[in-house]
């Protein structure tokens, strides 16, 4: 059964990502893509971008992209393993860090490390956005949808779900192809 090998790969890959995902799952999208599409060939580019869109449309944290990648790679077991692997290491770290923090109080180190990591997190999230834009915008009409959504989400307080819904309707109507 070759499924076992995939599960082990999922476990290792997402457990490692968990410990470097400063800023959450959206900071490691290019790395998840590299593993899922280029290294392990679990899915096509198109699949990956669609799964990301699904993870953004559904309720819940961004970490759901790992659930979907695991599921695409190895079914239900893959989904559960990827989700747990993506969450467990960082959760354990957080659990013990919170204990230490409650005990010893605010350390000047925490604020300093946080301030130092912040620009890197922003750079990684930016790389994710760049990657997703290049993968999704295969034509100028789609590029307009991306730009308009970014503008609405940045400048207004409108629920972003409306943008997703409108884009889905336009795409379904065949206007964007």
């Amino acid at each position, binding site marked *: 059964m070759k499924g076992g090998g995939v599960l082990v790969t999922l476990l290792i890959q997402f457990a490692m990502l968990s410990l*470097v995902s400063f800023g959450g799952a959206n900071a490691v999208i290019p790395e998840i893509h590299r593993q899922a599409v280029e290294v392990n060939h679990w899915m096509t580019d198109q699949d990956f971008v669609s799964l990301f869109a699904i993870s953004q449309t559904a309720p819940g944290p961004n970490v759901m992209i790992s659930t979907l990648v695991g599921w695409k790679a190895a079914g239900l077991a893959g989904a559960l393993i990827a989700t747990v692997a993506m969450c467990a290491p960082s959760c354990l770290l957080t659990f013990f860090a919170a204990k230490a923090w409650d005990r010893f109080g605010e350390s000047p180190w*925490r604020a300093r490390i946080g301030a130092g990591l912040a620009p890197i997190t922003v750079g990684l999230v930016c790389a994710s956005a760049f990657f997703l834009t290049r993968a999704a915008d295969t034509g100028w009409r789609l590029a307009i949808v991306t730009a308009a959504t970014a503008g609405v989400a940045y400048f207004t307080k409108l629920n972003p779900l409306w943008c997703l819904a409108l884009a889905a309707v336009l795409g379904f109507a065949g206007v964007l192809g």
Partner: protein
Amino acid sequence: MTAEVSAAPPPAQTPGPKALFMAFLGVGLSGFGGVLPFARRMLVEQRGWLADEAFNETLALCQTLPGPNIVNLSIVVGSRFAGVGGALAAVGGLLGAPVVIVLILGALYTRYGAIGRLPGLMMGLAAAAAGLAAATTLKMAAPLIRRRPLSAAPFIVAAFAGVGLMHFPLIWVLLALAPLSVAAAWRPRS
């Protein structure tokens, strides 16, 4: 000072694992495109489990650590009120329903995604999702660059270029940049 023992003041009533599970279940289900505002509303405004100040401090801690901020937040809140069981209940409540929903959507996509006009729908959805990611980047970058143009901007660009343009493995980019960036942000105690 009576509050020096714990960072979070004890709430009116200490929630158990079941209450934590139900509360975070609601947060997980309501968070479309960003769960954090819903978590704050639940913890601070609706249940009063955390004071405003304690919420901000806890969130700052969660943002320093790797992993999704909101998942980390559920761990901290759950463990503070009800130990390991509380942490598991909170994170289980937060992730349980979204995992099921996302798997149903994924299955529908695999089965019907290539049929008729649905590929067009997915293309539109993906383009809009990319726009949301771009807006998130702008929202994170703008205040940081404004506050620390010299110590932050070079590292934003370097991290972006390393991962986004050069496609270096993430771990190498982090190991190379993190010490320099922490040093650049270093400031005498304020």
